[in-house]
């Protein structure tokens, strides 16, 4: 290896021609590995993972820092997975009703029976009719504990419409009842209805946002890319739609849904309606981003190379801010879910016998429930949790969306 000479130090020539070094204040190290000009740039595997990480991976890392967002994400994931297993999770069937237990208050799960720790159970109800107030009075029977069964066999159902099964996660004791959230005016278990209702409420949000997303990206993309008159037209159109109060649009669109449609079609129609009104924000965001990105060099390069507009927009421009779009889309979902409840309230949306959280809340929207049967308002907690979770998750996504920031 080459010797590195220090200033103020000169090798002393010896009589036999060898160089010696005297002890000096600054010692140094000389490596004798071969010279590699790219040494600085090569990374260890650990470094490589960090620096060469794709954008999505960086988004994920940044998202992880936002603890609430992660928690919300986990909650949402659980809820969506539960949709697949609603029949398994719900203790009762969707239309199971028990006329002996109308307006029964929720039963508390206990683990201590007379001071002893036993498997979880509930107390059965003794019920009498109060003919004075026309009220049903339920009193728990302390000496009749009804143990909750887990992974038990109860009413049969068709899993995903194909397999017949009768396995449930929890069921009431044989001959007993398990109303963890109370019952409604026909004696139907509220918890089961909430679990089944999740199916519709959660998916309406997703589908509606999918519609909005498509519309927004499409229209915003066209406006942003072409500019000029198309842009002006789209701008004005968006202004017209945005300056419109939502309610009349909802009412009009719901009124033209044909009555003869089956509930599924009505459901799809409603998601379309909700989606068709919300796309404007997304379109504006896409449009403004595209307008600025359009001037970038990589776009010019693509144009010069003869790429068609669709390809330029789809392959080059959009991906650069896809994370923003996803964040915005996520933040639109709670609006859809709440929109569905609002539509149900106005009588325009889903109606019984379809079960969704909006339908459940609409049934709870009267003074009798607030004053006498407050447990029927429990679906509100489902909505609150879902909406909050989406909001926090979306916020986290948006914060993380620009990892290069």
């Amino acid at each position, binding site marked *: 290896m080459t010797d590195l000479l220090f200033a103020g130090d000169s090798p002393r020539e010896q009589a036999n021609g060898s160089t010696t070094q005297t002890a000096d204040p600054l010692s140094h190290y000389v490596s004798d590995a071969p010279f590699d000009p790219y040494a600085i740039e090569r990374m260890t595997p650990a470094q490589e993972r960090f620096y060469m990480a794709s954008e999505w991976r960086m988004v994920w890392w940044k998202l992880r820092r936002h603890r609430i967002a992660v928690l919300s994400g986990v909650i949402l994931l659980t809820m969506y997975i539960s949709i697949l297993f609603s029949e398994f999770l719900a203790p009762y069937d969707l*239309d199971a009703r028990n*006329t002996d237990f109308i307006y029964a208050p929720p039963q508390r799960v206990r683990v201590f029976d007379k001071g002893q720790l036993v498997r979880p159970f509930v107390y059965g109800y003794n019920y009498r009719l109060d003919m004075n107030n*026309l009220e049903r009075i339920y009193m728990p029977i302390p000496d009749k504990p009804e143990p909750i069964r887990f992974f038990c066999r109860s009413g049969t159902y068709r899993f995903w419409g194909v397999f017949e099964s009768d396995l449930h996660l929890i069921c009431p004791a044989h001959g007993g009842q398990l109303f963890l959230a109370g019952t409604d005016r026909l004696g139907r278990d509220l918890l089961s209805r909430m679990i089944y209702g999740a199916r519709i409420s959660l998916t309406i949000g997703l589908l509606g946002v999918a519609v909005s997303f498509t519309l927004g990206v499409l229209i915003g993309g066209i406006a942003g890319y072409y500019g000029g008159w198309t842009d002006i037209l789209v701008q004005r159109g968006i202004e017209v739609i945005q300056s419109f109060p939502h309610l009349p649009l909802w009412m009009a669109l719901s009124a033209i849904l044909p*009555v003869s449609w089956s509930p599924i079609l009505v459901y799809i129609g409603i998601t379309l309606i909700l989606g068709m009104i919300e796309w404007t924000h997304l379109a504006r965001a896409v449009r403004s981003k595209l307008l600025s990105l359009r001037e970038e060099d990589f776009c010019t390069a693509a144009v010069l190379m003869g790429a068609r507009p669709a390809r330029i927009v789809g392959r080059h421009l959009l991906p650069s801010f896809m994370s923003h779009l996803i964040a915005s889309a996520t933040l639109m979902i709670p609006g859809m879910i709440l929109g569905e409840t609002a539509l149900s309230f106005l009588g325009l949306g889903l*109606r*019984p016998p379809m079960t969704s959280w909006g339908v459940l809340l609409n049934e709870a929207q*009267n003074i009798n429930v607030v004053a*006498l049967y407050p447990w029927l308002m429990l679906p509100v907690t489902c909505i609150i949790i879902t909406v909050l979770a989406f909001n926090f998750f979306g916020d986290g996504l948006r914060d993380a969306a620009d990892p290069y920031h």
Partner: protein
Amino acid sequence: MRIEEKKPHRREVMQGGFALLAAGASLGEGRGELQETPALRDEVADGKLPEIEERIPIEPAVADLEAIGTPGGELRMLMAGPKDTRMMVVYGYARLVGYTPSLVLAPDILKSIDVEDGRVFTLHLRKRHKWSDGRPFTSEDFRYWFEDVAQNKNLSPSGMPISMMPQGEGPRFEVLDETTVQYKWTRPNPLFLPDLAGPSPLFIYRPAHYLKQFHQRYADKTALEIFVKQANQRNWAALHNKLDTMYRDDNPDLPSLDPWILKTKPPSDRFVFERNPYYYRIDKRGNQLPYIDRVILSIADSKIIPAKTGAGESDLQARYLRFDNYTFLKGSEQRNDFKVRLWRTGPGSQLALYPNLNVNDEIWHSLLHDLRFRRALSLAVDRHEINQVIYFGLAIEGQNTVLPQSPLYKSRYRSAWAQFDLHEANRLLDLIGLTERGNDGTRQLSDGRPIEIIVENAGESTEQADVLELIRDSWRLIGVRLYAKPSQLTLFRRRVFSGETLMSIDKGIENGLATATMSPWEFAPTSQQQLEWPKWGQYYETKGIAGEPPNLPSVIRLKNLYEEWLAAASHEEQAHIWHDMLQIWADEVFSIGTVAGVLQPVVVNAKLRNVPEQGIYNWDPGAFFGIYKPDGFWFDLSEPSAKSAFMAPSPR
């Protein structure tokens, strides 16, 4: 509460005619000295109003009340929209002829009425009866309506009301003298009197002195034009129609005969009605009715009215309260100063299923025409369960027909095909030949389609959805599938009328308290509004221009019976026809009734008197509170009562 318009004896004019109830003109008999109304004393002293002797008619109506009351106070009620001011006309129930609480027709505004042959009606007004602005109420007001309103092509493009045109023939109208008018038909017109006594009545008079200023024939041309322009109307007829709101009661300037007169000019969220100083009824002690000085209608959204009532904001409320509000209201009784009573409702069935006999689908058409099918469906409805689950077991189970309170009631009418008998129902369906079943146990039609009945409804109440849910489960046991399809009122009706709907659910027979003198139109195909045979009804309504003629023998028979009733000469004949119709109705099961006599909560301020404990809450007959005559309700401030701190100002 009993109100008798007459001395306790009746005179019946036979002459092949109807029972006639004449007022015994009893001046000074059975009543004391006239007392000046306290609220009006100041105005009388100032000279703005004449004294009470001048204000009431010479022969006023004397109310026979349960308890003589003290004048004073204001009554608050809750309504859902500005159109509900018409409820004051309904509740006030000032009618030429009205129903008593025992559902007997008796003259009210009229002093007496002579009926000859059921086709000549001579109406006797009370002498010196005045409108609410002090001007005389005379036969001129009847003439004005008859000649200048009903027969004026501009004001009444659709001509005279149906109840005045039996078989399309109008009456001959004659003014006999200042207080007597006569309507003469060539055929009996049994609809005339009941229509005069209806909740939304036939008004055959108008305040002529007021409306003439807006009528082309009488008004000064230039003045009328100014009026029209000021009111932003297109022409004089539009103006006249706008101001002539005897029923809707939204014109404070329009004179009226009602107990309370509107004083607030719309639009408003709070309508104040003040007492009519020229009201024609007095009590036995000589107080001029109404007792209550002021009625205040507050407008609020209908869904919030039960909550507001529970908070004590209404002194007399039944409208917009439902049976399921009872528990909440009873619980609120303590906090506020009211009591909740339960009255019975009048429809023949709270909810009834109507198979559409005019359905377009051919196979369903023939199946629904099959008597056994309808009977089987009816047998498979578990009315007891419906009663227990939704109505606390307090309703009356049975078919869609007259109630026990009706004099025409026979228990076999209600119980016909109304038991819960799955065995028999299955047997009948097997008999028809519907033995093929699908995989899930649903029976199949002759062309292989499963028997799925889509029951459409106007989607207005959860009650309907609940009942359908219960019926669905019991019909499943006989192999019939039920789907509920909520829709919107106009669309729902349109689909039924056009025959697209297979079956619908709606309220039952409106008049479950029918007497023989009331029209049995609901039991015959007379109107398109009847969901079980809209096209046949339309045929009758339009006199053959639209719709289809009935082709079921039993229905044809019903129609013929109805026409016989219209021409019937005697009370007995009418009753006989009624029973025939009711029997056919019971046998044929044209509508599947569920429960009837559902209880209606009526909230009454604890200090309000003369409101019956038990009563019937029905539209026609009944006019809700009308037949109980709210002008006789009064506030008893004598006994101390626990007032809650949250109560609104108490009546003076």
